[in-house]
């Protein structure tokens, strides 16, 4: 169908179909990812809350944070219980890590923006995709430090990867089915119009070249009736001007 109306309409339909599938796919995947990420995060938040309570119970007994040596075992046990956890850290109010599931990191300093948000009492690492953090508050309401849990993006990606691939595959299959349908539908809808226009063009050529009259069928529409009148008028004008030319030629030869 080179240079055809059906091709243009098909192209428009295909572009719309592709755009719609892409938009729906992206939005759907993004929603899946956001809900899944929120669930994974909240699961780790439960573990952080558990450690927080454990530490705060001991702080409330009057022990300073640095002297809560059993907490080192708690964080190591929690990490051992879930191999996906990357690291669990407990730091003091100055940001120095005092207990860490990776003992080599004890003594390091946490990012300063965490310290600035500790006083809010909520997850101070909420802007960080792969970290959950809660402040440690003693019985007098003073911030003693914080507990953070680092988890890998892999746990989310493992769940989302196959889903994304499945969505993509499904979208491709649907496109492969519905794109030809769109083309076929456009062709069927417009083919009749195209054929009739081509026929009228041919008829007009014949009328101009060979003469004759165009008589519209019963039930012809306005365009066909108009075309019949047009073709007849063209033929009539052609004949009349040719006759006039003949007359002029004849007169010209009169001497």
């Amino acid at each position, binding site marked *: 169908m080179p240079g055809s109306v059906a091709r243009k309409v098909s192209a428009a339909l295909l572009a719309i179909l592709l755009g*719609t599938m892409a938009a*729906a796919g992206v939005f759907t995947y993004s929603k899946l990812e956001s809900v899944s990420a929120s669930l994974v995060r909240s699961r780790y938040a439960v573990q952080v809350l558990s450690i927080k309570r454990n530490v705060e119970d001991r702080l409330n007994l009057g022990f300073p944070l640095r002297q809560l040596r059993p907490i080192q075992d708690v964080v190591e046990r929690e990490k051992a219980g879930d191999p996906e956890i990357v690291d669990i850290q407990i730091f003091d109010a100055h940001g120095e890590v005092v207990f860490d599931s990776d003992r080599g990191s004890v003594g390091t300093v946490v990012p300063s923006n965490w310290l600035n948000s500790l006083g809010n009492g909520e997850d101070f690492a909420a802007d960080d995709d792969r970290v959950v953090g809660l402040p440690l508050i003693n019985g007098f309401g003073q911030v003693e430090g914080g507990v953070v849990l680092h988890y890998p993006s892999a746990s989310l990606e493992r769940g989302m990867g196959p889903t994304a691939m499945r969505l993509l595959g499904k979208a491709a299959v649907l496109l492969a089915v519905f794109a030809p349908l769109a083309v076929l*539908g456009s062709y069927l809808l417009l083919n009749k119009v195209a054929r009739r226009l081509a026929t009228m063009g041919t008829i007009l050529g014949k009328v101009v070249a060979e003469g004759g009259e165009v008589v519209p069928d019963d039930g012809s529409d306005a365009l066909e009736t108009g075309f019949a009148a047009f073709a007849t008028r063209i033929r009539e004008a052609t004949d009349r001007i040719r006759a006039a030319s003949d007359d002029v030629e004849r007169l010209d030869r009169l*001497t």
Partner: protein
Amino acid sequence: MTLDGSRSLYPRLLVLAILVLVSPLALLGFDAMDGFEKGLTPEIEHKAAIVGGDLADQLDRAVNYGIPIDQLVGLDEFFAPVLDANRELRYLAITDGDGKVLFLRGVPAADLEPHFRNTDFDLMVPGQTSVIGDYADLAVPILADGTRVGLLHVGMDVHYVHHRVAEILIDVAVVLAVSLLLASEILMFVVVVNISGPLGQARRLMERVRHGDFTLLPWVVTSDEVGRFVQCLNGAVRGVDQLYRTLAAYVEEVRGAHFDPTVVERVGVVAEGIDAAYRFAPDGAPKLRHERHAVDVRLPLFLFTFAEELSRPFLPLYIRSLPSVTWLSPEMAMAVPIAVFMACVGGFTPWAGTLTARHGSRLVFLVGLVPAVLGLVMAGLAESMVDLTLWRAATGIGYALITMACQGYIARSVHESSRTQGLGVFVGAVLTASVCGMALGGVLVERVGFRDAFFVAAGLAVLSGLLAWRMVEPETERRERERAPTLRDMIALLGNWRFTVLMVFSAIPSKMALTGVVFFLVPLHLWSLGCGFGDIARMLMVYAVTVVVLSPLVARLADRSGWRAGLVASGGVLGGLGLLAPALGLGSDSVLLALACLGLAQGLSASPQMVLVTDVCAAECRAFDRTNVLALCRLLERIGSTAGPLAAAAVIPLAGYDGAMVALGALVLATALVFAVAATAYGRARPAEEAA
């Protein structure tokens, strides 16, 4: 045969578009739902196991200290934050060995106890869940010295995943609805430009030829079947024209060279016979005439308005997230950028109209795109409310230029007799774009955030410019400088009491309600009620869809009945009453009701109001031109648009969001009643056509 023109073809193509869009999207949506359920359920169970294990550890510690399980205290306070933080968990319970509920938070004991008493939890595999009505129950043993003394039950909401899935399906439905509207716009453009437009030109050519007129040919450049058909017609006309030119040349030759005056006279008679029967172009060949279609500009206008409307569901909330100035209340600071945008649109509209008349629509569209796109990009980069106000002003100027350029193009593309149809092209594009923009804006901002949503809008605006550059024909002939509306015209118009009453008691309050409520209060109010951006967008869609559906119906009704003042007054009263709905205190349902009523009100009054202006200002329309009268009317309306957010912001600190909506509703209702009474003195309205 039905060559169709496009009348029956367009709906059939729309049906095809619906079929090829709805089916795959529905299948994709349901497939995603299935995958989502499969993916999320294990994650929730995993989480419930962790919560259960953690709580059980702490309970184990307590009972190992020797506290009997039925005498534990403070469990309500212990369970409450866990349930609050995890919406997918519906209850936490502790039962003894017989299944008797000792402690429970979340649901009534009667819902669970029969199940607990009748289930042998010893037979269950650790981590296995059992379904109790709407809940999936996970039982974790509480151990004292290694002996089970009770069970901790973690109840998961089995509908949680369904709810999340439903949200996805709604989003997919919104994308689908927007796509269908977009498809209808694109298909309309393709059909008009490629089929109905050229065939319309062909029809007019055939009609001219039928009357012996061979002077004009349609200028069609497409090479498809329709283009070839028109070229074929043109070829036939050119053939006749060529014969005529040959004859005319021969006649001239005979007249100039023949020695016999009788022959010359008789040749002249022959030539006059042809000239009397047919008309040919005097300048040597038929002239090619390029016809413009109102639809040429519809797609660029649609895309630009769509881009601008994307920010509708979140703009006040974005403003709130930016640092503000201390000398304005937070509410007023949120209202100012919206009001400034409206003021710029209103203030620059008359100038934009004059500019369009002088320099043509395409140039003004492209020039208007510069501040509009710059404003959208910089709005995304704004560091403060002051920055944002400045860039919204720039977008407002661009908006005024572009909309006036489009209106001007449409006005020049349609015949005087079909001005209403032309206005329909403009209003249709703007309203459809509003629905799409509002709907997609909410979905988009949830995914990409405020700033990126503005960048997407800027990209769409650039695309609209490219389309305008390609599709909108440049002005080929210089137009006479049109007379711009002046302050004197405005004063003269306001001297017409009917017009003043219409503006002060109907047009301005209704615009105040529109911008104050729809653009400003609704996003803020719904956000405060815990709705997300997607929910806000869907609520706003109720307004826009109501207007889209109702406006054309009411326009026809108003034309038939001539009851324009009545419809305008009814719209005002309905809108005012609807805005009182928040006084019922039904939360988001009140807002929904108010939006539906406001949509009905705008749908009822918008079209009749425009016609009523030309009715009551018949003399002014003759004196200053109808376009100028309508431009001044639009300018006055913008006063209401600008005042709406500011008035709402002033009331919020005193009466809250509900109170502000009610206050605007009371204002609209009171002014509508005054208008209704005053309109009885209008007398029988003269039809607009007479006025024109």
